[in-house]
């Protein structure tokens, strides 16, 4: 009796295709207007690896995904501000948990369909696991924290305010160390702060994205980057499986898992809802799920698909994720102000004549933005934190006198005010001595680290022109080889701006294990906030 209607259904399905009604279509947006068959998706950058799967999906379903990549916090802010409402149809990040905890966040979201998952775990080489006596893989976060506090291994992890893998790791470790068995509450965080400090004492590499973190790790391992080798990584299981030489450890007290919900925005029109449904149905078919598992090393959500052998723990214990914004904010603030190794940064700032006017104003605004005047989510987490040491080194024909400020945990305002005043007092005049000034920055760091070595150290270089005075690129390259060992891993983060030389900036980043940021396609203020994730 059922079969009789299948033919009829097929006829109806054909007849129905393309007859869904369209809502308003006149928004002017960077990604283009809402369009039938196109799903505009604001997404985490790690989802770029889904492109081949999505290309196949487009052929099978007629639904094409247009990605715009964004950091998790930036994405959450876009959604909360309502800026995503007409510009996108859906969002796709590794998790919606934090966004849902924020006031007004849940209401912005429509249907959430999980596509795959990957826990945030620890990866270490077998040799290190043997030294630590962890060959059997049965380790708890408390044991890991203890060994980390004794510096028995080192690891890299992303910044919790910049990337979900770091955020999940922080939440997971905190929940495990609290050990209460239920969700973390704000009042437990003080009690576990000493153990968390131990845990983060072994972190020697930080990054604003999990992709860059793995690259930097591998470059250091191969010697392509000058910094000291790092033993392991805390990252998505999928990323660790992709890399060679690391064994994945699923701590027995639990993990926090990214579940990648493809999420329709509540504001999406009926075309988008239709596209969303077709796409998610397709992505969850067993064949596609198998492909996702094989190509991205993420776990399938379809229960019919058996797990591949590479997932050594078929069902890792999941730690409870905090249920309130307050618990998360208390934890993340404690991380920056009390727990993590504090950072030390020299800002090498071009104040040559060509910076006169708008450019200098943009630089002043960018620095001020890090002193607590930016109240957005991103601004809040990327401002200068307690204990942090900041040196402003303006330069033109040569380096000017550096000004160093350390943010006092008990009284932050004076240092923040001084940073702002120093920035406001910058005057543009003279030539551009990039490399001589960079060398000066290393000398400052050498002095500072002499008595206070245990900090994340980096240099930010902002210049709008080519080098016109002092040492040249080759001089700088040989200089970098002569710095003391403790400064060898110090990355320089050059910002491309104005007529700055892309080649020189790339060469500086490569020689120091840094990364070039583009201050021409986005505002200097945004770039300075992005760089914070790497400091």
């Amino acid at each position: 009796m059922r079969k009789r209607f299948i033919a009829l259904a097929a006829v109806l399905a054909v007849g129905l295709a393309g007859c869904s009604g369209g809502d308003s279509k006149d928004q002017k947006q960077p990604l283009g207007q809402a369009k039938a068959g196109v799903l505009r998706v604001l997404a985490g950058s790690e989802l770029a690896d889904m492109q081949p799967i999505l290309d196949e999906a487009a052929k099978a379903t007629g639904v094409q995904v247009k990605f715009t990549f964004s950091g998790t916090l930036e994405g959450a802010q876009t959604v909360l501000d309502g800026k995503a409402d007409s510009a996108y149809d859906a969002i796709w990040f590794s998790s919606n948990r934090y966004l849902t905890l924020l006031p007004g966040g849940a209401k912005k979201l429509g249907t959430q369909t999980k596509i795959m998952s990957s826990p945030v775990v620890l990866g270490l080489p077998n040799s290190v696991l043997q030294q630590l006596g962890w060959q059997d893989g049965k380790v708890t976060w408390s044991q890991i924290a203890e060994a980390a506090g004794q510096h028995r291994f080192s690891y890299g992890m992303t910044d919790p305010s910049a990337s979900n893998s770091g955020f999940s790791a922080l939440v997971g470790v905190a929940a495990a160390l609290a050990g209460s068995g239920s969700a973390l509450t704000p009042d437990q965080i003080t009690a576990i702060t000493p153990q968390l400090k131990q845990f983060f004492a072994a972190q020697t590499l930080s990054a604003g994205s999990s992709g860059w973190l793995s690259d930097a790790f591998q470059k250091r391992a191969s010697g392509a980057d000058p910094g000291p080798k790092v033993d392991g990584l805390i990252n998505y299981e999928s990323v660790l499986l992709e890399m060679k030489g690391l064994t994945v450890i699923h701590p027995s007290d639990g993990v926090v898992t990214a579940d990648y919900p493809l999420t329709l925005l509540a504001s999406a029109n009926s075309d988008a809802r239709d596209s969303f449904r077709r796409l998610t149905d397709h992505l969850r078919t067993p064949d596609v799920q198998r492909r996702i598992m094989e190509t991205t090393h993420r776990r399938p959500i379809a229960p019919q698909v058996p797990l591949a052998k590479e997932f050594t723990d078929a069902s890792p214990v999941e730690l409870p994720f905090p249920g309130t914004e307050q618990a998360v904010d208390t934890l993340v603030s404690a991380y920056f102000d009390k727990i993590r190794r504090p950072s030390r940064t020299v800002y090498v700032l071009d104040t040559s004549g060509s910076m006169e006017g708008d450019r200098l104003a943009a630089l002043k605004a960018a620095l001020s933005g890090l002193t607590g005047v930016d109240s957005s989510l991103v601004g809040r987490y990327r401002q200068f934190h307690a204990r942090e040491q900041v040196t402003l080194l303006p330069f033109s024909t040569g380096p000017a006198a550096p000004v160093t400020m350390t943010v006092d945990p008990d009284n932050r305002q004076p240092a923040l005010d001084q940073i702002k005043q120093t920035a406001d007092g910058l005057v543009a005049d003279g030539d551009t001595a990039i490399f001589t000034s960079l060398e000066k920055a290393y000398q400052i760091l050498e002095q500072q680290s002499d008595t206070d070595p245990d900090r994340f150290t980096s240099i930010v270089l902002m210049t709008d022109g080519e080098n016109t005075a002092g040492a040249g690129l080759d001089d700088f390259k040989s200089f970098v080889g002569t710095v003391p060992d403790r400064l060898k891993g110090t990355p320089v983060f050059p910002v491309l701006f104005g007529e700055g030389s892309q080649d020189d900036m790339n060469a500086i980043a490569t020689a120091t294990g840094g990364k070039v940021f583009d201050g021409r396609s986005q505002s200097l203020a945004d770039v300075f906030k992005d760089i914070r994730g790497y400091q």
Partner: protein
Amino acid sequence: MKRLISIGLAVVLVTGVALAVIFGSGGGTDSAPLTTVRGVIGSEKLAFFSDQRVKDAFARHGLDVQVDPAGSRQMAIQTDLSRYDFAFPSSSPAADRIRHDHGNAHTYAPFSSPMAVATFAPIVDLLTKAGVVHKGAGDYDVLDIAKYMELTANGTRWDQLPGNTSYPVRKNILITTTDPRDSNSAAMYLSIASYVANGFSVVNTQQQEATILPKVTPLFTNQGYTQNSSDAPFEDYLSAGIGRNPMVLVYEAQYADRLVRDDGSIKPDMRLLYLSPTVYSKHTLVALKGPGDQVGQLLNSDPELSKLAATFGFRTQDPKYFTQVVSEHKLPLPTSLVDTVDPPSFETLERLLDAVGKQYGA
């Protein structure tokens, strides 16, 4: 006050036949254009409405039913219902609220499903030893909610259960639910817990509310973050196994549906625990606009749709459809359950949910 209920005693067969005659005759043909009907539904009915056989059955009556899933409470409070012809939340309290806000629209309760817990064999063994799980009237396992609440009141962790070598995990013994602020299944769970905390009686005074809240709130807040729709934790249960969530609150229908499909998603160590007491989630369709009413009538009366609903694990208004599916697929499910209770009134439930929700600080 416990009552014994045999499923689906309120049979409206006569109405059903009458409507079948009226609407059955107007069935669609190959060429007739279909009327699109838009509905917002509790997510656990999405598979039913997406099924081609269900679409075909509606098409025979000239309808193309398009649905969006949403949390039932979200549907009652947040969702803009103006673009929908019907709302189909998963419980009578949510439907009451929607009906109340829409000029006493027609409602239909074509099927229901008792709340249950999806879990794993080692967990059933552990909880049986701990005296929290016992055998029901047939060959099914029952979780004693009163004993469960005693156990969780002290924040007992799995690794603190004596002799536990099968799941020695440093996590509280807690049933994973959805977010009580916007999902129906969590509200149903709160109904059960509040009944037990109130000395086995339905909460109906504000004084009782105040007394029971400290006992029931931690069942939710200790979980931390919860998801907003019941298919999400069940999907996690199916795909991620015992480590992710050892016990997940589900509608019986979600589990039964997977058993019927027999597609390998229910693994040999998976078990369904019934709750004592339990509540039935009465899936209630509220007809908001013209064609929405027809969908409600068809679901109530069309034998093919009733049969299909039973295939998706729902207990149908006429119990014979569900019983047939159980025997046809040899499902390990009881055809009738004892010890079911009513949820509190919509107002009481709302106040309780709001009070629990306030603990999340947003």
